[in-house]
């Protein structure tokens, strides 16, 4: 079962719904497939059908961020394809391994989808184009240089001959690929750089089964799982007497740290899981709570021998000589990714030992490795079918816990495919959470209010320690210290120390890992501007070198938002900036707070310089999505009690809704020459801009998230 994106049925999306849209191009209208004639793989990225349909292979995952379409645009651009004939398919991870990782990285995180593969996917398209042109030229016995490719047609000007890609693809595939291909200057782009319609949307509006949870195979069974409520706990005993008798139940699975029920539909499996009486060996973790975690962070901040994440100048001496010293402590809780689609994995251990897995994954190779290891087979004996993700945000990349569980369960019913899906409660209580943290910052200002010394101590669990320990350098996890140890601000004396305090809660990459530091830093800079009696925009600009791209986006956001111009009564602005994930961003928020303390975010202007822009509309959508994702930080927290997560569903871990959404205006200011991401950078400046606006509105500094009830109420 491969899930190819099928857009054939969507002829031109009707203009009757409003017309006059900024989006370019209609959705492709592919010709009916010619019967019997096989397509040709011109190279790993480009497959061409005799009827000219072009299938572009996509190695990265699609979780709504638009990477699938952007990558297809880049290949199609260099290929000079007719965009209306382009479709996509995910490259097979099994074939990837067998062909010596021909599709490069399959990992989709860190806003890397486009920026870390653009070079080789564009070369893939350009190489295929040259081969097609060469094949046509050979057929006509003319020099290739006299031929031109455009929209899937090759022409020879002098003789006015023309041939379609579909007619020469088979011959082209037999040619030696050119060694060096020249890539197009982005200023000449015709398909890339344009707001073409996303290729995955038509299937998604008719409810086609494209997600991991939608997998359906003949004879498939369903599984629901229950994991140790205390992280790290083990199963001690299971009383399955009641569950076994329940309708549809096929198998009770007991593993070291979870139990599961396999049944003929998911609801029955889940009902039976709830009927299991499980005794857990909770180990030592049952004693931990938010209080013990905070105490651990405090102990970390007090540790005199912390590794340094940054040291320039002499912060201590400069601080001692400062006219004014400002000090503040900021804190955040653990946060679940809360993808709308819960963790899910369908696994099938076939009679010949081959393992097939269908899953929503941000990293197909990691899923493959997890499945192979769990099943005890080599990678070559595993196939992972990449499904559309119902949200990823970092949850489905490095941790492949759900794939391991899916395969473990399938091993108990060999020969039968089993679809395991977590309940929302499992998903909420068994995340790889955005780390909680406590950060103390201190700044020394001179008599004019200029910041001459900056110190930060960061107590935060390390994501790398859990998921990629080899990446830790000298005790520093870059994702825990970034934004504080790599400030663009020209402060002469800086010292940043990192207290790695890991605790027992699993942590992971959560949209814009390290994001909390951007919140702390940019709110603290606002405090410094206030102490200096200066405008927060001017204060920042004075600390940025001329030509710094942070300056450019800060100025662009301020200009677009009308910084300094009058606002309606009761509405206040806040500003923030942060680079990250290859891009530079700045944001201006407009908020109001009523006397009851209710906060309304009216507008958010986000300026971003990502170097190049492949699809402006999906970039804007990412800005909107980042804002929505971050609003939740105002009230979300996963609280720890007796070693376990308290919140179990959206009633206690609330997801921002329609009424909370501000007007989001995205200002794209690409300066060219580099490739930055879009999936995460938009998250960086949202919350600090909002909190700085809250201060402007109320005079209150919010330094600990989430907000406490009544915190913004007028005293």
């Amino acid at each position, binding site marked *: 079962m491969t899930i190819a994106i099928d857009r054939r049925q969507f002829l031109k999306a009707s203009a*009757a719904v409003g017309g006059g849209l900024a*989006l370019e191009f209609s959705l492709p209208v592919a010709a009916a497939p010619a019967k019997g004639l096989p397509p040709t793989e011109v190279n790993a990225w480009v497959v061409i059908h005799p009827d000219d349909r072009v299938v572009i292979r996509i190695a990265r995952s699609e979780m709504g961020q638009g990477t699938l379409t952007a990558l297809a645009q880049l290949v199609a651009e260099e290929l000079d394809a007719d965009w209306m004939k382009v479709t996509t398919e995910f490259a097979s991870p099994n074939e990837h391994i067998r062909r010596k990782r021909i599709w490069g990285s399959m990992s989709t995180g860190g806003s890397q989808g486009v920026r870390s593969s653009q070079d080789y996917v564009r070369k893939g398209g350009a190489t295929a184009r040259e081969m097609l042109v060469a094949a046509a030229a050979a057929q006509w016995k003319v020099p290739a240089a006299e031929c031109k490719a455009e929209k899937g047609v090759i022409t020879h000007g002098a003789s006015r001959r023309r041939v379609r890609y579909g007619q020469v693809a088979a011959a082209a595939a037999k040619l030696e690929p050119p060694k060096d291909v020249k890539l197009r200057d982005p200023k000449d782009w015709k398909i890339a750089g344009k707001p073409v319609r996303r290729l995955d949307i038509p299937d998604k*509006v008719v*409810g086609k089964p494209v997600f991991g949870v939608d997998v*359906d195979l003949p004879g498939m069974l369903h599984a629901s799982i229950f994991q140790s409520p205390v992280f790290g706990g083990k199963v001690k005993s299971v009383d399955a007497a009641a569950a076994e008798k329940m309708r549809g139940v096929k198998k009770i699975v007991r593993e070291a740290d979870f139990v599961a029920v396999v049944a003929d539909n998911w*609801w029955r499996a889940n009902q039976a899981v709830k009927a299991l009486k499980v005794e857990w060996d909770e180990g030592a973790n049952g004693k931990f709570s938010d209080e013990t975690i905070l105490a651990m962070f405090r102990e970390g901040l007090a540790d005199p021998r912390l590794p340094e994440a940054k040291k320039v100048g002499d912060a201590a001496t400069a601080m001692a000589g400062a006219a004014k010293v400002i000090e503040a402590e900021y804190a955040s809780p653990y946060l679940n990714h809360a993808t*709308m689609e819960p963790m899910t994995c369908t696994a099938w251990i076939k009679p010949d030992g081959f393992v097939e897995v269908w899953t929503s994954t941000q990293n197909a190779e990691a899923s493959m490795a997890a499945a192979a290891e769990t099943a005890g087979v080599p990678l070559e004996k595993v196939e992972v079918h990449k499904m559309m993700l119902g949200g990823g945000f970092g949850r489905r990349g490095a941790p492949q816990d759900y794939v391991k569980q899916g395969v473990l369960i399938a091993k108990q019913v060999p020969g039968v495919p089993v679809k395991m899906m977590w309940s929302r409660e499992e998903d909420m209580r068994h995340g790889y959470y955005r780390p909680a943290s406590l950060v103390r910052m201190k700044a020394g200002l001179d008599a004019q209010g200029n910041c001459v010394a900056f110190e930060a101590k960061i107590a935060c669990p390390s994501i790398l320690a859990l998921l990629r320990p080899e990446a830790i350098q000298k005790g520093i996890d870059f994702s825990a210290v970034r934004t504080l140890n790599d400030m663009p601000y020209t402060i002469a004396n800086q010292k940043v120390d990192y207290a790695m305090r890991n605790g027992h809660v699993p942590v992971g990459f959560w949209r814009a890992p390290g994001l909390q530091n951007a919140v702390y830093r940019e709110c603290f800079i606002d405090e410094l501007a206030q102490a200096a009696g200066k405008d927060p925009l001017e204060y920042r600009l004075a600390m940025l070198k001329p030509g710094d791209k942070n300056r450019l986006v800060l100025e662009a956001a301020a200009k677009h938002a009308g910084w300094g111009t009058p606002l309606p009564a009761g509405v206040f602005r806040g500003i923030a900036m942060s680079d990250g994930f290859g891009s530079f961003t700045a944001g201006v928020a407009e908020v109001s707070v009523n006397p009851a303390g209710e906060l309304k975010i009216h507008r958010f202007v986000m300026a971003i310089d990502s170097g190049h822009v492949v699809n402006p509309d999906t970039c804007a959508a990412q800005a909107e999505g980042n804002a929505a994702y971050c609003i939740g930080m105002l009230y979300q927290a996963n609280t720890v009690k007796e070693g376990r997560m308290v919140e179990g569903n959206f*009633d206690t871990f609330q997801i921002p809704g329609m009424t909370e959404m501000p007007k989001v205006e995205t200002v794209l200011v690409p300066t060219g020459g580099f490739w930055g991401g879009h999936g995460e950078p938009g998250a960086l400046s949202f919350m600090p801009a909002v909190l700085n606006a809250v201060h402007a509105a109320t005079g209150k500094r919010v330094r600990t998230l989430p907000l406490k009830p009544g915190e913004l109420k007028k005293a």
Partner: protein
Amino acid sequence: MIKLTVNGRVHNVDVEPDMPLLWVLRDQLKLMGTKYGCGIAQCGACTVHVDGEPVTSCRAKVGDMVGRKILTIEGLGKPGLHRIQKAWIEHEVPQCGYCQSGMMMAAVALLAKKPKPTDADIDEAMTNLCRCGSYPRVRKAIHAAAGQLSSATAAKKA
């Protein structure tokens, strides 16, 4: 056997009467467009129409559905696409898309009651949750489907 009418077709399903409609649709009838998000009537991912009303199918017992007309995303706008689906494509509403079946079902129900909904009407009716933050586009697409976006505003806002 429970007799169900879904998207104009009659099905006989052999399930417990207290099984939620959501799971009958997904696992028995293989209509996978309707999604599970929370199971506690919080997110709206499972929204379908029962006799024209939007209902969170995760909390609707299948035993209570006998004799009622159920419409899911798969049955919407047949033949072809409903104007909401067209507007959703036109305005590139979905990101991951997981919540969108429920969103569209809620939007269609809203338009049936209020053909020209105001922003306040949309706020009130569209309580579905979207982790990807498609809200501004949901709003715009509803207005567009209601014929309330002039080309000029559509172009400006896009």
